[in-house]
């Protein structure tokens, strides 16, 4: 059972003290391979009889389309962008994650509140403010951090191409896309590894092959999954 505990002020509308499911957050920066690992992990868990739901950023029916539209304009200030993402997170939590946890499923969150906080912090938003807002988030049973350094990360990005926002294009105007990417990612990675220490995440080295990384993630999450009654 998952004890219902929040980082800060509890949000309205959640009466349960315990949830039968398990919430596992997979954190890591842009392009580190989260979605690939989550997709393999989901197949693996389902093949073994567990019910699994995954949820990634911008998939909320309420704000997903709005964020995509707003980001095309490239004029979003960090506070508005962050509040858009906070709304997206909450909508997905209420609509997808919470019902799945109530139904006894494993929820694999492709990023949780931490990426959102790190992105906003490197853009100048106050840490305290972010912690207050995201205090509405349920504390996951486990957080896995896919760890990588900017030098290894950029080699993967070269293959798939750079993204304006992942390169801090909205606030690092005077850099080349490469320099912008390296600076933005270094700062974000710095924030994320500080959080890994602070919140006690399970850190997985993401520099290996997909098979190696998956195996390490699998070994890390199975005790959490198996603490539910076996299917």
């Amino acid at each position, binding site marked *: 059972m998952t004890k219902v505990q929040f980082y800060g002020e509890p*949000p309205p*509308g959640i009466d349960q003290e315990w949830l039968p499911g398990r919430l596992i957050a997979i954190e890591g920066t842009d392009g580190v391979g989260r979605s690939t690992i989550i997709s393999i992990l989901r197949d693996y868990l389902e093949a073994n009889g567990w019910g699994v739901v995954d949820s990634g950023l911008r998939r909320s029916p*309420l704000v997903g389309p709005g964020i995509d539209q*707003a980001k095309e304009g490239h004029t979003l200030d960090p506070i508005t962008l962050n509040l858009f993402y906070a*709304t997206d997170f909450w909508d997905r939590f209420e609509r997808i994650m919470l019902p799945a946890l109530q139904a006894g499923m494993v929820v694999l969150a492709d990023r949780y509140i931490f990426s959102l906080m790190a992105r906003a912090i490197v853009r100048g938003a106050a840490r305290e*403010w972010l912690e207050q*807002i995201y205090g*509405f988030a349920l504390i996951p049973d486990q957080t896995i951090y896919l760890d990588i350094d900017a030098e290894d990360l950029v080699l993967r990005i070269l293959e798939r191409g750079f993204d304006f926002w992942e390169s801090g294009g909205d606030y690092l105007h005077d850099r080349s896309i490469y320099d912008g990417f390296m600076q933005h990612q270094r700062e974000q990675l710095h924030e994320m590894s500080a959080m890994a220490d602070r919140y006690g995440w399970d850190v997985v080295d993401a520099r290996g092959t997909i098979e190696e990384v998956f195996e390490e993630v699998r070994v890390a999450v199975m005790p959490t999954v198996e603490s539910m009654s076996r299917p």
Partner: protein
Amino acid sequence: MSTVNEFMDLPGRLIVVEGIDGSGKSTQLDLLHKWLRSEGYVTVFTEWNSSPIVRDTTKRGKRKQLLTPMSFSLIHAADFASRTHEQILPALQAGVIVLADRYIYTAFARDAARGVNRKWVRDLYSFAPPPDLALYFHVSLEESIRRIGAARAEIKFYEAGMDLGLSEDVSESFRLFQGRILEEYDTLCDEYDITRVDAHQSLVSQQVLVRDLVEPLLEDMPRREITNVPTHMQTGYVSLAAGGGL
């Protein structure tokens, strides 16, 4: 994002109006706006729920009834953040007068009436510059319903707080929900430096009071040279637009 201290030396003036639907606050702000312009002051007007970047999402959420108390609160904060960044702060930095139809207290009152944690909502809006003058147009529930009834045929889902399941009946739900908001406004007037205006008074005497309260703030505000102003503007008498509500 910012602390109060960062707003200390903003040269502009921020004037906000608050009140439930049917309190007449928009009418009073409109009259004030026209008077200030007729006097040559540079003004920027901003209203709740109007950011070009966020508005469509909120509208869709309302139309499809996708909003819950928390997402309602968050998306309105996003709208406000966008307007703060693009309208309110630049105007205050430029040293002009900003007139806001509804401000953070609307969120404090409505979200609390929806059961959202009061401290959390206040923290959420901590990036907002504090107003130089906040006016609360206080009207009784009965009077507001009488006025809205005259202006509008149908009450919208979220305006009536139908998402809270207070009553199956729209009118009854509206009454209960607006009653809660009135109670929250009462508390807010004690908590913050908000000036209460008795909105049962005549429109003209309210406007006289509003102008008296605004006048001391106008010192040092930039003015344009006014030429060829129509006589009705010079006297301060203006025609009224029909009440809109939100």
